[in-house]
């Protein structure tokens, strides 16, 4: 399980830096918004009491920056966004594509502080 060890190692070597991206009010509940975070496009979804999620905005299947414009919901209890291009579902929790095993997007830590939305970026120590 080299992959698992690697992930642990990275957590030890990195710490999270929080980037303020927008006000919570800038986001439409149960819809996505896109933030530019250190050159990366991050799709943020505000699901009211179901929480706040952030994943890559880039759809690796459709090869375009569109995931924040997909419909969010749940499939078998898993929170997902459906790509607006070809409708594959990506888990908001893990970034895994439900239809295509090899398709996967990054997930990001996200928090709300004083009405502002923060995205966590891992930076080397």
């Amino acid at each position: 399980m080299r992959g698992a060890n690697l992930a642990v190692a990275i957590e030890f070597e990195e710490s999270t830096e929080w980037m303020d991206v927008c006000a919570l009010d800038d986001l439409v509940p149960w819809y996505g918004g896109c933030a530019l975070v250190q050159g990366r496009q991050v799709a943020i979804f505000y699901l009211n009491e179901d929480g706040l999620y952030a994943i890559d905005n880039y759809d690796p299947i459709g090869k375009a920056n569109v995931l924040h414009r997909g419909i969010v919901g749940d499939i078998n209890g898993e929170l997902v966004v459906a790509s607006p291009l070809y409708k594959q579902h990506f888990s908001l929790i893990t970034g895994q594509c439900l239809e295509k095993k090899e398709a996967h997007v990054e997930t990001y830590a996200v928090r709300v502080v004083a009405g502002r939305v923060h995205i966590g970026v891992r930076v080397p120590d």
Partner: protein
Amino acid sequence: MQTRTRLVIIGNGMVGHKLVETLVGSAVAQRFELITFCEESRYAYDRVHLSEFFNGKNAQDLSLVAEGFYSRHGVTVHLNDKAVAIDRANKIVTSARGHEVDYDKLVLATGSYPFVPPIAGSDREGCFVYRTIEDLEAITVKAQASRIGVVVGGGLLGLEAANALKSLGLETHVVEFAPRLMAVQIDAGGGAVLRSKIEALGVRVHVAKNTTRIGAGSERLHRLEFEDGASLETDLVVFSAGIRPRDEIARACDLALGARGGISVNNHCQTSDADIYAIGECAVWNNQIFGLVGPGYQMAQVASAHLCGDAASFTGADMSTKLKLLGVDVASIGDAHGKSHGARAYTFIDEPNGIYKKLVVSAEGQHLLGAVLVGEAEAYGNLLQIVLNGLGLPEHPEALILPVSPAGAPGLGVDALPDVAQICSCNNVSKGELCAAIRAGATSLGALKSETKASTTCGGCAPLVTQILNKEMARLGFAVKKDLCEHFPHSRQELYHIVRVERCKTFEELLDKHGRGRGCDICKPAVASILAACWNDYVLQKEHAGLQDTNDHYLANMQKDGTYSVIPRVPAGEITPEKLIALGRVAKQHGLYTKITGAQRIDMFGARVDQLPHIWKDLVAAGFESGHAYAKALRTVKSCVGSTWCRYGVQDSVGLAIEIEDRYKGLRAPHKIKMAVSGCTRECAEAQGKDVGVIATDKGWNLYVCGNGGVKPRHADLFATDLDKATLIQYIDRFFMFYIRTAGRLQRTAVWMENMEGGLEYLKDVIIHDTLGIGAELEAEMAAVIDTYECEWKKTIEDPDKVKRFRHFVNSDKKDSNVIFVHERGQIRPATEAEKLLAPRARGGLNQLP
């Protein structure tokens, strides 16, 4: 100590293999040691479909034995080794290769051989029979050097052979001794129709011809000479004059035989030696030989059961049969010739189409005794069940063979069949067994076939098996699942009614009361569409915005690179020069690619989300409205130029199209809706390819419905003729609202109507005759939608909060750097992935506005 019964089976044809299969599948399989002799070089294969060898199937395709089947079950097979003698006293079988195998029980499944009439010269080179794969291979080789082929014998197999010769490219003749084809199975009337159909296919048929001699020909290799003095020259002869049981091994060991050959068996398929059984075509029961695979399989099952100690009897078999011969459906059921005392017949003959059907009924008309079907045999399954189960005849039995009206076939249906009804006669599978398998989880046709073996031999019962599957599934309640998705246990139609009746205004409310979970990309847009059709709220209203597909959300059509295209409404395709110039100006100013659509509009591509409100500000200022190209809604009403300009036009098609487009613009529906109006019968607007099409007549308008183009184009149906405009509009109002009420999600009008019980006629009843009494209601609902129409784009650009949402980043005014255009033919197009790698990212793309 030998604990197992050693069972030797002589013959590995279809029936011999069936016996092995049945025994190894039985609960007491362990009690037997199985040894089988097979004279041919390959395991059992499907002789019923032997002719498919000529359609490209090979021996492997025809094989009935899955790879490793025999070894897996510990069955010893002596391939290519013919059993030649039985020593009954010492219970030993001797084979041609010298194997001596002792047995406890012996089964003879030696089958039959093709009968070659005693004609001088029948052993000449180039004369064949039609029984084994080797025979077919030899015929194929010979055919390559031949021009003409003759089949002697016009029975079932003879016609199969004729088909083979024809497919090998030979001029094909069939010579039959009797005065008609298939004399055993069908009557004179059926034979005549069959003959004319076969001759129409180019096969020459010679009946009442007694071949007396085959000699050398003068033009071709052989000359067949007939009793009446005629002759026929040919290169190749195939004999197919019936079968004879292979009983020589039984004869040699003094087993009792039938009067005309065949090994006599009792009801348990035992021969005169209780330890020896005979099954299939080599056996004779009650002085009858059964030359079909179905009875052979039944005998295999009876013998297997008896060997296992179970009670089972063979009490004769139904010889009904259905086949496709030279592409012609032929079926014969029960007493096809009406030989029963007092039998009477109903006959239907359709000469132009070559169809012949006959029912033979009992003297008192209560029961069906037999039937003949030529040219069309769809009724076979139904009729066979009526005969086999002794079901009473309907009041008008003739309805069973008369051409079916589009309203639906008469007949008793599978529900009328008792559980014991034998559905698959080849494999003896009853309706009860099928239903049990379905209940046990075989819920697809494939699973059901592999579970029960039904419909795996001749396939004739496949339609019945399918019907039983569908009925049983429906009965069990998991028929066709109509749930919209995992969040709503309702169909779209049901949700529509709930929304209407409960005056439900939001998705959240509906999900709370009637759903579960959080919704998904299936139910959210579907419910959004229902809400829009019912209440016509602004789609970007806070509680609706998140339900919309990206196209509805941004009121534009997303393209492959994440940019959007924009289509303003151009009603009926009529546009002023000023507006045309305005479109050009807007496209040029925002750097968009332009193309004329198939729906008489202009599409502008390559708009980023942040550009959309700016583009629309300009378009609205120039007098344009949303074209709803992004929505499941009315798209466009295409028109031809009509009587205003056209020499042939009889009505103002443009005027009507504009009026209609104005009326229904923005109407949201289960799927997109397309319309067209043509000004005369020349139909330049292609109205018959639309959901609703209108064609001018000199008296008014003809209305067509339920057409479409696309993947599965469908010609629209004529719905009503010579309507005045008010009635036309009334019908269209009702039609659309009824569609919106009752259609499934993403179901276009064509599929909706085709799935509707009663189809077009029912739709006419509802719309034209108002049989449901909902006409006024439908019109009122449509009026409400029309009254509340507003241009979504106009409303959007007037609301600064909404405009704010049209940006790519929440925290930056930068553009999406992955949107890169290159130029082609004077316009932009999206860069390919390869081109993107070459593009200088730092500049933010090749064609981006600063």
